[in-house]
């Protein structure tokens, strides 16, 4: 039926054909736009979902991960999950772990990475200490018991890069007046974001948490330069040296703080304006002193 109509090739049919074509194209085009826009909106990673080691930056990751789940299967600790529609806010099918319940154990051979067929987990990552899954942040100083003056240091001790990723900073305990606070401090240049510290935190709700790096880190303005570093790089100050300060002093008088203030030129200048002997001061007639000063000029 359709074939015979086409065979006739009348104008009406061509019109119908083009009309149908446009209808389909418009429908599909709108659908595509909807999908694209929704995906943009839905593709932000929630704060508690951490990508496996070697994961590309989130936007590139979503273009590279084909949602096969091979990393999930090859994780010996079974911590990785795939995002599920509607039950977590992770893009469906993409891998993540939750530090508080199942942190990355930082296997030396990183088996999840070579399992990835598309380099969404970068095969260039061979040293697990170089992984940057996220960044630990001591989010609550009001409940962290180290800040209350109690000895804990669990996060410091569990850290696989102990001493480098988390160090202890000693501070005076102003409450007791005689003790020290052992404050854990995270260093972003060493922290891999494995989440072992968050898992180990003894509080009901962890005071130290791992966040995706872009949520945890601030960022200086790109135009911003640190003067001392620029100076070091250039080997010299990059601004003109300060002009020497000039004082408006009478002739024959100088000012130099290292020489303890005003310096009178000439012989008299050796004499102190005021005698160091307190008796002289008491016996002197203040008027004489004033006149003496005038004579010296």
């Amino acid at each position: 039926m359709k074939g015979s109509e086409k065979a006739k090739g009348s104008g009406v049919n061509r019109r119908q054909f083009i009309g149908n074509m446009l209808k389909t194209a418009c429908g599909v085009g709108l659908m595509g736009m909807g999908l694209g826009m929704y995906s943009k909106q839905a593709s932000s990673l929630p704060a508690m979902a951490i990508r496996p080691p070697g994961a590309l930056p989130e936007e590139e990751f979503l273009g590279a991960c084909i949602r096969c789940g091979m990393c999930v299967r090859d994780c010996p600790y079974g911590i990785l999950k795939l995002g599920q529609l509607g039950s977590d806010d992770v893009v469906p099918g993409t891998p993540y772990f939750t530090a508080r319940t199942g942190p990355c154990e930082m296997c030396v051979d990183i088996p999840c990475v070579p399992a990835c067929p598309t380099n969404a987990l970068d095969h260039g990552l061979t040293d697990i200490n170089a992984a940057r899954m996220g960044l630990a942040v001591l989010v609550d100083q009001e409940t962290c018991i180290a800040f209350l003056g109690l000895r804990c240091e669990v996060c410091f001790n569990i850290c696989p890069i102990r001493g480098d990723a988390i160090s202890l900073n000693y501070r005076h305990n102003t409450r007791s007046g005689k003790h020290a606070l052992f404050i854990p401090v995270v260093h972003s240049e060493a922290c891999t974001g494995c989440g072992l510290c968050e898992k180990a935190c003894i509080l009901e709700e962890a005071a130290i948490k791992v966040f995706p790096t872009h949520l945890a880190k601030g960022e200086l303005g790109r135009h911003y330069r640190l003067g001392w570093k620029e100076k070091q790089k250039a080997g010299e100050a990059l601004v003109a040296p300060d002009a020497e300060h000039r004082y408006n002093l009478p002739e024959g008088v100088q000012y130099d703080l290292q020489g303890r203030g005003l310096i009178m030129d000439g012989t008299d200048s050796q004499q102190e304006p005021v005698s160091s002997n307190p008796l002289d001061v008491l016996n002197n007639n203040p008027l004489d002193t004033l006149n003496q000063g005038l004579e010296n000029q």
Partner: protein
Amino acid sequence: MATKPRLGSEAVSAKGWFKANKWLILRRLSQFGILGLFLLGPLAGVWIVKGNLAYSMTLDFLPLSDPHVLLQAVLAGVQPHKEAIIGVIIVVVVYMLIGGRVFCSWVCPVNLVTDLACCVRRMLGIRTSTQISRSSRYWLLGVTLLLPLVTGSIVWEMFNPVSMAFRGLVFGLGMAWMILLGIFLFDIFVSKEGWCGRLCPVGAFYSLLGLKSLVRVVAEDREKCDDCMDCYEVCPEEQVIRPALKGAGKGIGPVILSSNCTNCGRCIDVCAEDVFHFGSRFANQKTNPGSATGKMKESAFSDAA
């Protein structure tokens, strides 16, 4: 119409129940078998296959990747690894031989849903259907390939019911069952064969793989056809049957050449007269040497191959 017997009952009485359902049973075994292989690992700890339909590794030796998914990733700017490329070559070659849409009827988990929908639709006697062009799927396929180019992200895989269903069954479904329910209801109440036959871009992609596939359904004994219409009724892509079955007068060969035939074999099952068989696309040459029709191109290709 009212006296028309239940679909396929003639075949059952003519050939026996098993022969009248042979390919359907094999197909279900294939679908559940593949799913079972993937589930053996997580459920029983027997790791024969890891991964899912997007990419899998069998016995740490055989990689298989989905060409549609991988193509989207490549368009998003990915350079796949060796295993993924080997996997995609194997899959493409196999489907080019056995028919691209064999994926749809023998592997895809959504097929179970849409087949059930079709069954329910038939039982409820629903005849109305929204007209959605069967070519819509190719437009959608275009969109799925355009989106990663524009956004740099594999957008379609956020929504793809095919990969989501299979991944869901293997890794945890979440709310993906709602999408499957949506497809189920859509196929029953909105459009006959609406998802698989009109919209699904995955099927559209695989149909392109099968454009020149070797294994085809052949209406070998088409002169025996008694016009019971059961094959049209049961076929998920009924438009593919007519040229082969009724083309004898126009000099068209008996091979169903349309790449949208899913090789499901259901027409073979339900035909009481045993008109259809699986065969090769070259079967046209035997019965139709040098036919002077539009199929010339096909036979020319076959000669070259």
